[in-house]
């Protein structure tokens, strides 16, 4: 028979079990506390925002200061315009850069671009506003939709690059080789076979970038500025939903607060719907991996 020299005292065992249970409880509680604000934000935005979601909200221009009524129609359209312009630049550029990292760049250059992408993701977006102000607003002499789009494009770019590159890396190498072995030129293999295999993931990245850009306020404050009227040209100040929400929320008028809540509800709805769509898309993206 084996003599057990390490006989733990019952008290130590008892304590270990209590600590074990306590630890589990603490981390579970932490999770609940972390999620509580999300629920609170959604709850209040729904409660305060739904009454403001009137027909006028989506179809009317803002009323002059102090007058009740009006809506954010121009800001909603404006957001669409600015984000659309930014997408026109950021999406092709981002996808090409993602392809460059995963298909062409040497290991060192790829690491460098990847690193720069990560750093850009961490830059405060208001700094991109300053940049766009310096390179677009100052030379032209006034605020414009272009300037806002320039700032948002830099917000979107690293997101598109990162997701494109990560998803392209998941496409197994033997798929590339199969294409090349058919005598298909490399660029056609990349564009028509690899990109197609990765299309779900890349769409994810694009949606992610669009959602992020649509909610950005800081880079638009002094690039796109704001505008009470419908936009006729792109080289003039333009209203956007987030800036309008900000303006209304910090102003001292009840009716504007109501509209700010409604705007917040529209934004949060957009983000949550996109998040759910993304979840569904991503969970269906998988490749058979090389052995």
């Amino acid at each position, binding site marked *: 028979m084996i003599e057990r020299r390490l006989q733990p005292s019952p008290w130590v065992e008892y304590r270990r079990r209590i600590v074990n249970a306590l630890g589990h409880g603490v*981390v579970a509680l932490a999770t609940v506390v972390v*999620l509580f604000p999300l629920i609170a934000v959604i709850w209040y935005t729904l409660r305060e925002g739904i009454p403001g979601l009137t027909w006028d909200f989506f179809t009317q221009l803002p009323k002059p200061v102090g007058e009740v009524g009006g809506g954010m129609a121009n800001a909603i359209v404006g957001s669409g315009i600015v984000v659309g312009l930014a997408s026109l630049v950021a999406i092709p550029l981002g996808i090409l850069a993602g392809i460059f990292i995963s298909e062409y760049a040497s290991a060192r250059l790829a690491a460098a671009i990847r690193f720069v992408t990560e750093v850009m993701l961490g830059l405060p977006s208001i700094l991109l506003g*300053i940049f766009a102000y310096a390179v677009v607003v100052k030379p032209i002499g006034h605020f414009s939709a272009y300037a806002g789009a320039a700032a948002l494009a830099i917000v979107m770019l690293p997101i598109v690059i990162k997701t494109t590159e990560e998803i392209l890396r998941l496409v197994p190498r033997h798929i590339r080789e199969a294409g090349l072995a058919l005598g298909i030129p490399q660029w056609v293999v990349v564009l028509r076979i690899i990109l197609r295999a990765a299309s779900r993931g890349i769409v994810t990245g694009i949606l992610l970038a669009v959602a992020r850009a649509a909610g950005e306020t*800081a880079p638009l404050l*002094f690039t796109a500025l704001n505008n009470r009227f419908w936009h006729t040209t792109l080289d003039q100040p333009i209203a956007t939903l987030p800036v309008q929400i*900000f303006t209304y929320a910090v102003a001292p008028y009840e009716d504007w607060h109501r509209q700010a809540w409604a705007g917040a509800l529209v934004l949060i709805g957009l983000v949550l719907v996109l998040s759910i769509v993304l979840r569904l898309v991503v969970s269906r993206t998988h490749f058979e991996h090389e052995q």
Partner: protein
Amino acid sequence: MAAEVSSVRTVPQGRRFAYPWRGAVGNTVFFGLCLIAGIVVLLTLLAVIAQLVVESRPSIEAFGIGFLTRSVWDPVAEEFGALPFIYGTLVSSLLALLLAVPLSIGAAVFLVEIARGWVRSVLSFLIEALAAVPSVVYGVWGIFVLVPWLLEHVSMPLAETWGEAIPLVAPPATGPSMLSAAVILAIMVTPIITSVARDVLLAIPRAQREAALALGSTRWEAIRTVIGTARWGIFGAIILGLGRALGETMAVTMVIGNDPSIHTSLLQPAYTLASVIANEFTEATTPLYVSALIEIGLVLLLTTLVVNIVARLLVWSIARRYSQQ
């Protein structure tokens, strides 16, 4: 059958393919486009940095290094110093981390080590959604819900009971304050720290948990050894959260009170680097005022650059160490 079919088809190779030139030319053109895109990305970051340096030169020349240590902010007299904003940014961010870090790590541990199946995926989804909510929405919620609530249930009681004894909670308590900013920042950085910490924990090989359990550890003790292994990666996640908190603009601007003076009491208003740019940039009328604001942007840029680079290196080093095994 095969032989018969093949005897029919003896088409000269190459002719059937419509664009024999597409290969070489297309490869070169496409490679060129991709290369340009890659270089544009590198240049964009450099351009942002360079532009901020160039635009802040008037201010740098006017105030020198004293810009960072002076606490005067007087647009009328054109006297500018960034200290109140640096102070406000650092204190609000660190306070936010104080609140967010224990919660985030707890939630990450719960997600990786305890939650299973659909619970895990639903919770992960919610936390990612939390990270995706636009800053201005947190701001609206903060201004109308969080700030009044904090004032009534936290700030006022604190100031009344402890205000005399502890300068940090000295009255008068105001709604928009350093504390409000710290709380909203904590809410905003929690999902980021949680999801990065979760990824770091997931990168730790399963064998390590099993080894600890096999030695007779309780599950909690096994979790603690895993956290020990992942500590540098988790530290990276925290630093990443710090970077985010330092640069967060809209929500903070809406709840911090925007007062360019340094108060010891956390229950009173403050100002951050990002907020002062957001609030005053369009009002800045003189070139020196604009330049001073851009120099504040430069300070913010350099701080977040350093913080982000450190964080990335930490997170990557963990991921690399374990992916090679």
